């Protein structure tokens, strides 16, 4: 793999040198071409080292102990929260550590259903109570993580699920739905994990505000790939995962405006989230502790802090520029292959760096197999966005997705692989 200076100005040779896994080979000795960063990204040495240093020198249960190790571990854990807060334009106490974005979205959904059972709750939580007639709004392009929790919330509260449809180029169709006075939540992906379309956040926030609904942003595919300021976006909640942004698995973040977190009943309960416990009943600590029951993912938070350092040193604007460049190359080269159809916007306006496509006459699984045989790792299937695929009348797409270590040369191999697949299957 020759890793040259990228047009975006990134020193790719240096960056790639930080990621040990990128130098391995797969199948019969082929260099790994990892185009599956949308599923999970790889980790640089700096993240691995930060976690290891923490574990070899400071590891202890945080927010519990009074000995020196416990102090140091707590400091490191909270320092990571502060770093992440800075990255996304939030206050540290607005961030809750979760195991992944999925848990973050579920946390919000369960806060609503827990608040809907009013016994024993303070009046504050009333604004989260739902009932028949209330509406939760999502979109048809959502990842299952931002759809199924809302379906289940509706099941539990008898609220109604409604959704925006999708345009032919894979964007949220703003004309397909009118919010109503009964709309309580509008939840959508900042960037689609399939079409890479970037949502019109300002417009959706405006509409939600107009009817007094809360906005939940699935920021899984935005925070890792572009500059995001959650306060400026004006959303109420946002969720993202560490493993997609060069950080560890097992850690994610839920952002919530202080005023809202303050008013929400807890989700997962247990140690370290309490104020006072009696057998007869308990009261709970202020956020973010209220939502971090049990011994947390300590070293993982520290690792995520190191990932934020790594990304910040590069600059999220340059990360975004680099990925747009990669998307341009992917769209250009795939566009020259007959029989390839892009699922998603075909130009770079309001679009991130993943490219999903189908190949006429060759099933995505078969295309993926041919690519895999050449060392190119892509994802095939519905990518946890089944309704989106159904909307386009297809079962599965091939998705290539990138991160800061991906090179133009790697992306160019996609089109070659697709041609090879067409040849192999005789179409």
């Amino acid at each position: 793999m020759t890793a040259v200076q990228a047009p975006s100005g990134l020193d790719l040779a240096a960056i790639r040198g930080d990621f040990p896994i990128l130098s391995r080979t797969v199948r019969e000795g082929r260099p790994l071409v990892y185009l599956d960063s949308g599923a999970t990204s790889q980790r640089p040495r700096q993240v691995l080292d930060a976690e290891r240093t923490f574990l070899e020198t400071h590891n202890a249960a945080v927010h519990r102990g009074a000995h020196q190790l416990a102090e140091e571990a707590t400091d490191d854990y909270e320092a990571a929260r502060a770093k992440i807060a800075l990255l996304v334009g939030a206050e540290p106490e607005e961030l809750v550590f979760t195991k992944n974005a999925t848990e973050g979205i579920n946390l919000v959904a369960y806060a609503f259903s827990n608040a809907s059972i009013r016994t024993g709750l303070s009046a504050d939580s009333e604004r989260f109570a739902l009932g028949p007639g209330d509406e939760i709004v999502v979109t048809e392009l959502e990842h299952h993580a931002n759809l199924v929790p809302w379906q289940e919330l509706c099941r539990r509260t008898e609220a109604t699920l409604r959704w925006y449809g999708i345009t032919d180029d894979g964007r949220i169709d703003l004309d397909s739905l009118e919010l109503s006075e009964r709309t309580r939540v509008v939840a959508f992906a900042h960037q689609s994990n399939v079409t890479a379309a970037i949502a019109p956040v300002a417009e959706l926030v405006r509409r939600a505000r107009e009817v007094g609904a809360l906005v939940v942003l699935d920021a899984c595919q935005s925070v890792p790939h572009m500059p995001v300021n959650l306060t400026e976006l004006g959303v109420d909640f946002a969720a993202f995962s560490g493993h997609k942004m060069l950080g560890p698995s097992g850690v994610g973040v839920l952002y919530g405006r202080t005023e809202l977190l303050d008013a929400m009943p807890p989700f997962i309960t247990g140690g370290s989230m309490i104020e006072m416990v009696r057998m007869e009943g308990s009261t709970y600590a202020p956020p973010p502790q209220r939502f971090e029951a049990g011994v947390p993912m300590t070293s993982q938070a520290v690792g995520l802090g190191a990932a934020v350092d790594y990304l910040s040193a590069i600059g999220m604007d340059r990360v975004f520029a680099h990925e747009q460049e990669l998307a341009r190359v992917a769209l250009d080269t795939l566009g020259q292959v007959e029989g390839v159809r892009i699922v998603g916007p075909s130009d770079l306006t309001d679009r991130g760096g993943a490219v999903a496509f189908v190949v006429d006459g060759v099933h995505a699984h078969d295309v993926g197999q041919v690519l895999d045989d050449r060392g190119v790792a892509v994802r095939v299937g519905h990518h946890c966005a089944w309704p989106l695929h159904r909307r386009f009348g297809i079962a599965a797409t091939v998705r290539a997705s990138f991160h800061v270590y991906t090179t133009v040369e790697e992306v160019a191999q996609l089109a070659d692989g697709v041609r090879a697949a067409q040849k192999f299957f005789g179409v």
Partner: protein
Amino acid sequence: MQLEQMYQEIILDHYRQPHGAGLRDPYDAETHHINPTCGDEVTLRVKLDGDSVQDVSYESLGCSISQASTSVLTDLVVGKSVEEAFRILESFQEMAQSRGKVPGDEDVIGDGIAFAGVSKYPARVKCALLGWMAFKDAVVRVKEEETS
């Protein structure tokens, strides 16, 4: 190229010209199976004649492996007794899930042994078994209805 080991000519032949495709009447049970990771689907009908498999018809949406294996299935089980068909199924399944360790017995699973290469790719094993599981399920349903 490991590709040719996986996509043996027999598989590609069945994929291009699937045997027994299409949904036919009459039938005793119909099942619909889905591979939740990729959304591939098969709708499959079984017609028994006493204790033997009279017809298997199907409509499928899926990759070459799942289509070819369903095609091979029909070749192998139609005309056999249910007992015999299930023995074939078990043998095929054992091979498919063996991670390349069980080569498969050609006397039992015929063209099915072409799928031995697939068994080395765990993510594709479900593709190879999609039609077979739908068949198993359909037969079980017929039998259940008979006894109830």
